[in-house]
């Protein structure tokens, strides 16, 4: 551990001194100071935390791609790569394994570049892209059924919750908030493979056992939709929509949630890693809805 820290420090000092890039001296001093502080933090935290760690908290940021075809609104596939994907996760591993996650993603796809038009009501306007806001929050609980050599397998259940709010902008006409709300219980599998003391893979797989889903009506807006927004109070509008949801069978709704994380152990306290997340969501009621999300996260994890 100490050797790695020293090496890091050495490399940075060497780079600062030998680099062909000329950096203003006071910036170099600041960088040195911050580098020292970060290294000191890692070093001291690893000294403090000599016990076995049961809790982990990770912060992930990444580039994501969405592909969505919601036939209620449009027959076209809306896709975009976007950098606003944040995932916070907390896991605890003792007698039982627990995982709590919350993820936010924002995409603004459009099938063409925005253009201008002149409307009777608002004069000259420029079209804006659609807006997809995705919030996922999950809690999983399971028990290890295999813990041998480099492998560890946990099986359990996951409370899976998604709120997807979208604005589809069709030039002068907005089709607001065809929300997709889904609550469900998944079969949860967590597999960890330790390559060696410093490198590991960790993967989660979720397969739905049942889902309770609210989707916008067939024509995006109907009288139930207007009744739901009648109160003009955000929470009540939301709960009204939830009440209009339905338990859906595998025939109407399918999901597949998978992530694969490569982790590198910096020290007893900190890991860094790369995570690939794949979330596939298919729904057939009242129209075909297909959404595939790929996100590549970089992550930092603290163990305590």
């Amino acid at each position: 551990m100490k050797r790695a820290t020293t090496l890091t420090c050495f490399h940075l000092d060497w780079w600062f001194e030998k680099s062909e890039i000329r950096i203003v001296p006071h910036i170099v001093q600041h960088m040195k100071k911050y580098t020292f502080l970060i290294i000191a933090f890692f070093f001291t935290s690893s000294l403090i935390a000599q016990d076995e760690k049961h809790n982990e908290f990770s912060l992930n940021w990444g580039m994501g791609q969405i592909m969505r075809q919601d036939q209620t609104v449009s027959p076209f596939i809306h896709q975009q790569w976007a950098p606003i994907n944040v995932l916070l996760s907390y896991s605890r591993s003792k007698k039982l394994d627990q995982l709590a996650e919350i993820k936010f993603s924002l995409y603004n796809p459009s099938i063409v570049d925005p253009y201008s038009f002149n409307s009777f009501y608002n004069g000259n306007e420029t079209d804006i892209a659609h807006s997809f806001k995705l919030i996922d929050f999950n809690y999983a609980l399971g028990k290890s059924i295999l813990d041998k050599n480099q492998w560890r397998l946990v099986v359990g259940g996951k409370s899976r919750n998604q709120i997807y709010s979208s604005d589809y902008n069709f030039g002068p006409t907005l089709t607001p908030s065809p929300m997709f709300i889904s609550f469900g219980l998944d079969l949860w599998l967590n597999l960890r493979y330790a390559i060696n003391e410093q490198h590991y893979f960790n993967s989660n797989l979720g397969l739905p056992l049942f889902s309770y889903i609210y989707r916008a009506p067939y024509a995006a807006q109907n009288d139930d939709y207007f009744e739901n927004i009648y109160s003009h109070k955000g929470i009540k509008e939301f709960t009204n929509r939830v009440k209009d949801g339905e338990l859906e069978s595998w025939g109407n709704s399918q999901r597949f949630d998978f992530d694969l994380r490569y982790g590198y152990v910096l020290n007893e306290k900190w890991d860094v890693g790369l995570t690939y997340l794949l979330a596939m969501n298919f729904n057939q009621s009242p129209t075909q809805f297909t959404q595939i999300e790929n996100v590549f996260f970089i992550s930092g994890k603290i163990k305590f």
Partner: protein
Amino acid sequence: MKNYHIILFAFLILSLVGCENAFFEPEPANNPENIFENLWSTFNSEYAPFEERGVDWDQQYDIHRPQVKPSTSNEELITIIKSMLRSLDDGHVSFTTPNSDVFYSNYLIDQRIDDELFDLELIKNNYLQNDFLKSGNGLNTYGWLGNVGYWHIKAIGINMFDINSILDYFASADGLIVDMRHSSGGNFTYAFSEFGRLTDEKRLVFSSKTKNGPGKNDYTELYEWSVYPKGKYFNKPIVLITDRYTISASERAAMAFKVLPNVTHLGDTTNGAIATKIGKELANGWYYSLVTQKTYFNDGNTFEGVGIPPEIYVKNTSSEMAVGQDKTLEQALGIF
């Protein structure tokens, strides 16, 4: 880390990313014939008031489809589509293409016919003597015309939350003129939820049903919309003024006024685009809107396509407007 771990990791990710397209329905193709077909068939399965507007959509197909060929230019296709949509003459049907005026199926709006027969600035200057208040993001304009209150509603939205304060402001008035000329719609639920002080009992306003499938008769059950009493009843005479540019949610609000026993409706017939519209897009990025509902007034008749008729028909003329007179407003004042 051994190389095979990296290769396995990369292979897994690439294989998952690569097979995505297999999960989606084929998209409508981006060529003139498919764009036309996509537009026509979406109207055919989703547009509700063909009957109310007396349009045979199959006949429109027979007229326009042969004009579209693989070699049809964008300009030609725009002209063909506009011609087909014009048959609906629907204020809720629009067609948007880059860097041009939005096309409105409703001839009156598209050609701005009689647009100049209402001017709020004229009322502010010549009748309110520039003594007026505004609220609700400028959508409410109100002031005194002698002992009578005057309230212009430009659109229906959060400005409806101010109904209570506007009615308080006119508590001592002999009556109220609600001017909904050129009121461009919005979200009717704001009007209905805030309407409580204007009615002394529950009153059915209209009912509606919405497409819930692609078949000709695929509709939800009829849903009834009423207004309910809430708060201190405003029991003064009200004159409602509308014109041909009173449209959409503003027409629904006008219907809510119309069911009140103390309301006299004066002016011109409303636009007749009452049912809800939704937006859509075509493969080349052009936009359009269409209507997915049928609506019926509380007596079972529909105003879709014909507009809400006033009890007293009055229409300004260009010459009166040119000399700063709003005869419609003056006639409304004469009722009190």
